[in-house]
């Protein structure tokens, strides 16, 4: 009788935990979207941020976020996939591999602010790139690399051993087998992982504070010369991203509608990340269906 009561009681408590967690998610996303939706408008998305007056937008910040994400992926994807191939196919069980694994573990558990400080030390001060998109993207590459390596390694490991052997049995070299057989087979998994990690990069802020800076020059969206200082494509200009903007508006801004701007920007940020999440799942499934012909 007593144990029965304890059983029912504990199951109730465990269920409460699960309900609480689902409730936190619903409350969080719901609150941000509810508060921010009224502030999102075409004008909010397409006008410049203002320093003193109310009614500033987030055009430049939104562009910077996507542009830094793009440049980061440009560095991360080849490096990360190569790292994943090394870990899954070439690494022999020896000391070097163990060291590499430890390195990835350290990289993935470094706080992002430490990565930002490293970026400041090396890219900003040592290479004299100042606060720039390039410094920020390289810092984010360090931050994102271990994730991509793990995703790629897992995807390659889940390709059946038979495919590896049959490639080799046809007389292909190992590299050619990897390139033409294993990578295509692992592609859906890698793609899903890449898009999910893109969401993580998109929302990252601490690593960018000291590398990409807190300001954006006046951008001229008709000037697409990547060397011009006011061009949106220039990688050597400072760039405030959306998530950094949310922080900066709350921390030390004097605009009267800081709260609304922060909510609006946060709603846009959360929507983008939900979009990344959904598209990762859908694209992964779509590509897999297309490739396996089911």
């Amino acid at each position: 009788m007593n144990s029965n009561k304890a059983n029912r009681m504990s199951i109730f408590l465990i269920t409460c935990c699960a309900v609480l967690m689902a409730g936190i998610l619903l409350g969080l996303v719901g609150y941000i979207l509810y508060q921010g939706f009224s502030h999102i408008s075409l004008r909010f998305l397409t006008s410049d941020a203002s320093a003193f007056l109310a009614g500033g937008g987030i055009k430049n910040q939104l562009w910077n976020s996507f542009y830094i994400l793009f440049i980061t992926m440009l560095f991360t994807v080849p490096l990360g996939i190569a790292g994943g191939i090394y870990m899954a196919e070439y690494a022999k069980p020896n000391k070097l591999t163990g060291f590499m694994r430890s390195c990835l573990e350290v990289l993935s558990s470094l706080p992002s602010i430490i990565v930002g400080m490293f970026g400041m030390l090396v890219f900003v001060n040592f290479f004299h790139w100042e606060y720039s998109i390039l410094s920020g993207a390289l810092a984010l590459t360090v931050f994102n690399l271990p994730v991509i390596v793990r995703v790629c390694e897992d995807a390659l490991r889940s390709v059946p051993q038979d495919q590896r052997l049959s490639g080799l049995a046809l007389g292909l070299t190992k590299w050619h087998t990897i390139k033409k057989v294993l990578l295509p087979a692992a592609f859906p998994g890698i793609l899903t992982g890449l898009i999910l990690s893109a969401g993580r990069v998109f929302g990252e802020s601490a690593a960018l504070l000291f590398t990409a800076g807190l300001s954006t020059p006046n951008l001229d969206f008709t000037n697409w010369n990547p060397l011009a200082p006011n061009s949106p494509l220039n990688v050597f200009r400072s760039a405030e991203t959306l998530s950094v903007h949310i922080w900066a508006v709350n921390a030390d801004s004097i605009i009267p509608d800081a709260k609304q701007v922060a909510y609006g920007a946060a709603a846009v940020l959360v929507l983008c990340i939900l979009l990344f999440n959904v598209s990762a799942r859908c694209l992964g499934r779509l590509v897999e269906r297309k490739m396996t012909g089911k």
Partner: protein
Amino acid sequence: MIVKNGESSLDHKTVNRRLIKENVSYRTFLSRNSENRGKILIFICASLIMAATMSITLFLTLQGIRSFTVDGLNPIKFLTGIHWNPESHQHASYGALPFIFGSFTVTILAALIAAPIGIGSALFMTEIAKTWGQKMLQPVIEILVGIPSVVYGLIGLSVIVPFIRSQFGGLGFGMLAAAIVVGIMILPTVASLAADAIKSVPDEWRQASYALGATKWQTIYKVVIPAALPSLLTAVVLGMARAFGEALAVQMVIGNAKVLPHSLIEPAATLTTMITLSMGHTTDGSVLNDALWSLGLILLIMTYIFIILIRFLSKRGRLS
């Protein structure tokens, strides 16, 4: 005749050429050259990853000990001093204890919030509602993991801080607000890792427990939790490592007072919030700047301690 001969020889040539061409492509298919090229590419990328890790450790250590070697601060006084007062010219003092204390308190409180809820949710997913619980909570966890830390900070600033202000008085900013925000932030990490840990407990053990007449709860806390304990601890420690390094969300709700707080609802500061706030305003090479790098070094050392702790725990998990 001659023309015909010529034609035939031409024919012969083209055929030959095609044969050779096919042969060439066939060779690249099998050649050791492309194999080596690919191998070298992969090894260069792998060594770049190792170089990045080593250079982060090396550079941050070198920069972090500058305040002791170049500026002559006393390391023991730095770690135990409670006065952080770099502005005064005569008695500039650099005591980092309030920030170290703040970081540890926030981390431990966050773990105390996240561990029960996270492990409870994991138990729900794996033991109580195996099919639909998993289907419901897996996306919840994945979305919560993806939400950026500034959004958590914003929620903390506009919901949790006013709530604490109305309940306990004071400003509302403080370590309690920070711990709640960070606790919610690490909740999905703890929950998903805990679910993995519980799933790896063999099903026969549960069945054996049921066969002895144990209830579900008795099975959970006498069989499942002890068996998964090292992995569950790993999950919590990983969450704590994340909490220790979180910067912006904490900065938004902790109040940023450079003193040792007397209670959980007074403004305080952590290592990360100090770096976030002051790093941009200091000149390169000043004593304050070097002291901030030393705070960063403490963070780095703690990261390594967390990693060693996790390794130790996962080794124990494998033995049992």
